[in-house]
């Protein structure tokens, strides 16, 4: 299914491979099931967009991509399944309504601001929210308050897949911000996270949105995000592969524990510890966590001491990355997606087709 997905991506974008890991230990052998991950977009209204030096990258491409994914899903037979996730920070309430967040209350004005974002970005948002695509949305730290609004029912803090009532789930999907915040603010934050907020034992309504929201507000403090959200400088550099007739290497640009630097392994340990606790509670065999949030697309893996745990960080559609393509160094605007099928996980960088 990876090849067919690529056909659809190639229709609307120039596609480069950021990273790939093909390994049976991913424990996702399904040939008929593909999971596609769209990371942070940080959409805001047109009026507010004028106030910032940066914004959502390639919105027109994003809109085309959403339409292509709908086509891909539609043309996939009944014997196969396509699941699309948006990994949080779909819209950016912090940049849209800073005064609302400084007070921390609810107001009609805030709800109107949400509507303005939706209206101004309808070519991107509507196909992604189309029931035919069935995107599963995550609440991120920049849009967590959407949980208050009835039309965002079904947007959650986390998913576990596949839904296998006998064997349990093998991967967890969430935004990723909580790994940094809880360790700083709550002693033994990861345990708190696994037991009381994100763990499978937690009832969705008791997932402590109140506490999460308080932690998010504290973490943001009074930042205005005038020049950047996560990355004052581009992420990387990473060596990208131009997709063509050459067969792809089974392992490309994988950040390995014990070999690569700490920044490239950001949140790998936290995700793995979280997975261990969940496996202990549920008798599952989680081996992968999928996140966004850092705006740094990468696959990081821990294979030490006969372990195997993968962090798939799908990047973003905002801010920039530093890359090398066919020996040429350059900066690109982040526009990445992740995909998992048949024990093969990949991240692609997209850019508008050169005419």
């Amino acid at each position, binding site marked *: 299914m990876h090849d067919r997905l690529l056909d659809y991506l190639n229709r609307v974008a120039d596609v480069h491979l950021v990273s790939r890991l093909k390994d049976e230990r991913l424990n996702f052998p399904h040939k008929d099931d593909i999971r596609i991950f769209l990371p942070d977009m940080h959409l805001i209204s047109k009026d507010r967009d004028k106030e910032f030096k940066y914004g959502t990258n390639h919105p027109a491409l994003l809109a085309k991509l959403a339409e292509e994914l709908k086509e891909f899903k539609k043309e996939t037979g009944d014997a196969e399944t396509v699941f699309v996730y948006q990994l949080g920070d779909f819209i950016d309430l912090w940049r849209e309504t800073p005064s609302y967040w400084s007070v921390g209350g609810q107001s009609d004005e805030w709800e109107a601001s949400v509507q303005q974002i939706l209206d101004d970005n309808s070519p991107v948002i509507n196909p992604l929210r189309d029931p035919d695509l069935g995107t599963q949305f995550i609440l991120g730290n920049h849009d967590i308050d959407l949980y208050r609004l009835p039309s965002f029912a079904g947007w959650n803090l986390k998913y576990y897949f596949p839904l296998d009532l006998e064997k349990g789930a093998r991967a967890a999907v969430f935004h990723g911000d909580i790994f940094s915040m809880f360790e700083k603010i709550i002693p033994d934050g990861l345990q708190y996270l696994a037991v*009381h907020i994100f763990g499978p034992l937690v*009832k*969705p309504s008791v997932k*402590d949105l109140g506490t999460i929201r308080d932690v998010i507000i504290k973490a943001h403090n009074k930042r205005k995000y005038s020049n950047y959200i996560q990355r004052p400088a581009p992420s990387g550099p990473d060596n990208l592969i131009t997709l063509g007739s050459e067969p792809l290497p089974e392992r490309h640009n994988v950040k390995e524990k014990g070999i690569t630097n700490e920044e490239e392994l950001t949140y790998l340990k936290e995700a793995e510890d979280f997975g261990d606790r969940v496996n202990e509670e549920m008798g599952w065999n989680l081996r992968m966590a999928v996140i966004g949030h850092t705006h740094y697309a990468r696959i990081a893996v821990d294979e030490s001491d006969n372990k195997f745990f993968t962090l798939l960080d799908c990047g973003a559609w905002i801010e920039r990355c530093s890359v090398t393509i066919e020996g040429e160094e350059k900066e690109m605007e982040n526009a990445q997606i992740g995909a998992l099928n048949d024990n093969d996980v990949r991240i692609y960088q997209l850019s508008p087709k050169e005419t």
Partner: protein
Amino acid sequence: MTNHRNALKLKHTVLLVLILFVYLNCCYRYEPSFVAVRESDFRFGPVSLPLNQENRTELNLFLVKGGDKSISDYVDPMAPKRYAGLLDLLSNSEFLKDYKNFALEGQRKTTKISKVLKQWLRDPIVYQIVDATQKRPPLVNPISITDGSYWWVFYRMKDTEDHYKIVELLVTLSPTREIEHFQN
């Protein structure tokens, strides 16, 4: 001097009572409580009670998905375990016949739920419902009770002259999500 103080106190009390009276009459507005039945992805049922095995499996899947049929993954993996006791009761025809098992002491003029349901659900009973899937409001209003995440709508039928039994169930995702703080 004491008389003067007492007179002043009385004056203040009268003033406070007056302010309260004016507030209650002018500012307080009665808003009836009602339950809204959500869009089809966010509701399960209505199904006949007692629950059969097929309905029970479907309901468990709905709850595992966090009350959204379109979701393909686990959102609330522990839901089957958490609601197992309630679903056992709703699979029992004897339990459904006795209105005391739903409303406190079987009263029809109450918003308090029975003690047995308090293990999963909580006060109050809401009698009004807005269900746009129907042509008209129901002639016999169901009773709706929430657990914080869902509204459990129990449809009633007159059994004898002065007695109702529960005959159908609809579970609908709550329109608003709650903030519940974890207590250490």
